[in-house]
């Protein structure tokens, strides 16, 4: 079913305690099943906040979020986080007391998945992330480079085969070659496994490459939401226009 709404945000606002300006300001948004929605925008514009609210790490101050047409609060929060979403955190958040392998399989272990299944999964994911399982599997996190850590973070998010991926700047620390390869892998994930992906980046060319639709955020608002053609040809605000131009330049 194309164009079916998987996630729906209705008049979502988020005020952080102590902040006058809202982190998210009355945002409404539909996310289609199987699409990649890329969020771009300046620092502090509310991208991470939006992802966190989807995963219920933050609660909206007002408004409603529907998942498959049902209020997000009607789901068990941990089942939602484990089964429905996979989350790549902006700050990565790998556990330093566990090896790469243990980090990736933690949720599988808590779900009592058999060890053979876990081993296989970890190998697949490491291969997928261009990390040799034999070299990296038993390393601790402090023995990894920044980019390697980022890729382990992505592998961990993919471990549960969730329907929907929330990826907060997952490739920020990668070299151009690896980054390009992994972007191709993400596109393949979408094509083959029909995953819905919400992807945050500061890199406009990455947004253009991956995004079915791109949302431009500024000051807690979505300034414009559309395909890259729509954004380039009919920018609604000077900010969008400027962003598109700088994007082309890089």
């Amino acid at each position, binding site marked *: 079913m194309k164009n079916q709404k998987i996630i729906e945000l209705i008049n979502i606002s988020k005020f952080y305690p102590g902040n006058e300006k809202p982190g998210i300001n009355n945002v409404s948004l539909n996310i289609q099943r199987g699409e990649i929605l890329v969020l771009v925008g300046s620092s502090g514009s509310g991208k991470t906040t939006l992802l966190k609210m989807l995963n219920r790490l933050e609660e909206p101050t007002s408004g409603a979020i529907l998942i498959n047409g049902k209020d997000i609060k009607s789901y068990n929060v*941990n089942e939602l986080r484990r089964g429905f979403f996979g989350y790549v955190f902006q700050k*990565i958040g*790998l*556990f*330093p*007391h566990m090896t790469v392998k243990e980090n990736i399989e933690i*949720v599988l272990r808590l779900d009592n998945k058999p060890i053979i299944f876990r081993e296989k999964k970890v190998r697949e994911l490491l291969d997928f992330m261009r990390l040799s399982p034999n070299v990296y599997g038993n390393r601790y996190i402090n*023995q990894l480079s920044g980019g390697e850590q980022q890729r382990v973070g992505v592998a961990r998010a993919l471990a549960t085969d969730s329907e929907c991926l929330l990826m907060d700047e997952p490739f920020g620390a990668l070299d151009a070659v690896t980054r390009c390869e992994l972007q191709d892998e993400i596109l393949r994930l979408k094509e083959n496994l029909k995953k819905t992906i919400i992807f945050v980046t500061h890199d406009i060319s990455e947004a253009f490459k991956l995004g079915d639709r791109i949302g431009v955020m500024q000051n807690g608002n979505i300034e414009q939401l559309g395909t890259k053609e729509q954004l380039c040809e009919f920018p609604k605000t000077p900010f969008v226009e400027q962003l598109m131009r700088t994007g082309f330049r890089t």
Partner: protein
Amino acid sequence: MEHGAALQQKTFEHIALAGSSIFLASTIAIPLGIMMAHVPLLRKVLLNVGSISQTIPSLALLAFLVPFLGLGNTPTLVVLTFYALYPILRSTVAGLQSVPPECKEAAEGLGLSHFQKLWFVELPLALPIIMSGVRVATAATIGITTIAAFIGAGGLGDFITQGLALNNSSLILLGALPTALLALGFDYALSQLEIYLNYRKETSLPFSSLKKILFGIASIILLVWVGHSLSKEIFFKPSKSIVIASKNFTEQHILAELMAQLIEAKTDLTVIRKFNLGTTVIVHQALLRGDIDLYPEYTGTAYMIVLKESWNTKEKDILEKVRNSYKNKFNLLWLGLFGFSNSQALAVKKKFAEDHRITSLSELSQISDHLKIAAQPDTLKREDGLPGLSNAYGLNFKNIMQVDSNLLFTAIAHEKVDVIAVSTTDGKLQAFDLVTLEDDKNFYPPYQAAPVIREVVLKTYPELHQVLSPLFGFISQQKISKLNYEVDVKCFSPAEAAHKFLLEFNLL
């Protein structure tokens, strides 16, 4: 080495006491610390209360607990656990607070439950810091465990207090050195454990399952031992028995031994010795609880420390007062006086006294401005010590030296000083050929020694009065000094000295 077996046993007791307190404290403090890390108000209150708790002197706390918990392991464990709580509590809170926020967020975001987050992420990351708190607590506890000796719970402190009591520095070392070694050893072991548990490990350390098993077995043995001795303490007491106690100095040991050996010889009662207890207050409380039945006490001490009366020099007979108050207030009986008084006094060389023709403190005051005196720090400070005495007699010494009790006699023997402050029954007075000067203005209260016994015990075993009566009025100033001399200078044990004495005077 004659103390070998004892050393082994005391070390074991010491480890058992310290180890189980740390175990208890950890099982209380770590969960509490976890709660505190999540409840800011609780954290603030408990950390403040906890830091204040550390300032309570351990001996005071111990004395406070004796009325409720008696003597032995129970109050010791309570006190040790109490002191170990705070460092572990604080490190647990600090450890949990040190967990990187992005790790906590990732754990939540991945869908770990509160408990899973705590167990799989927060505690492992906090563990090195928690362990460092346990380490601090352990080192401190091994030190504090020496106070167990004050209430008869054993441990290496026994050697230290006995050494102090009997003026035997090698005994003190026998307790102090292993204590220090234990503290260092445990600190090292825990630091290894800390390294093993630290998530920042680069390569995994060898911590074989054999070592884990040994560690487990050792902890179990320890707990079983403590449980066993606790239950013995609570449930086991021979039917026909009497518990004789003493405080922690030579003369008390000797007097208690004299009574114990007489009772053993003349009755079929089993005598249980709880010697070397910490302070007058602890002994008195134990007596009130019935943990002990009989011990030697001094009228002046009872009057001022137990009854909290102040000494008035016009008071002639405090014995009657003490006797009545003890019977009415406590149901405790003072039996016959032994026949000597252990008071404070100033002593000079016999030759010096003869040369200057002085026998009393009033006479000494005439020439005191030419004289040098030495005394223990305690005597110099207390108002009922040298300052008060100087006031009463107008003493004004040329020079006052603060000297440890062991060195007092050496100081006067080598003529570094002319006068020393001593106890009137000190065995070394004879050895060094000294005489005490008469307290002709009654500045010091009389410290006449006598057995104190629980009324019910005497009612149950009325023969005790008869059995002990040969000692009443029999132990003169000279006899007790001689006995003290045998132990302090000639290094007989109190039991040997007492036995020789009883044989010598045909009392057995």
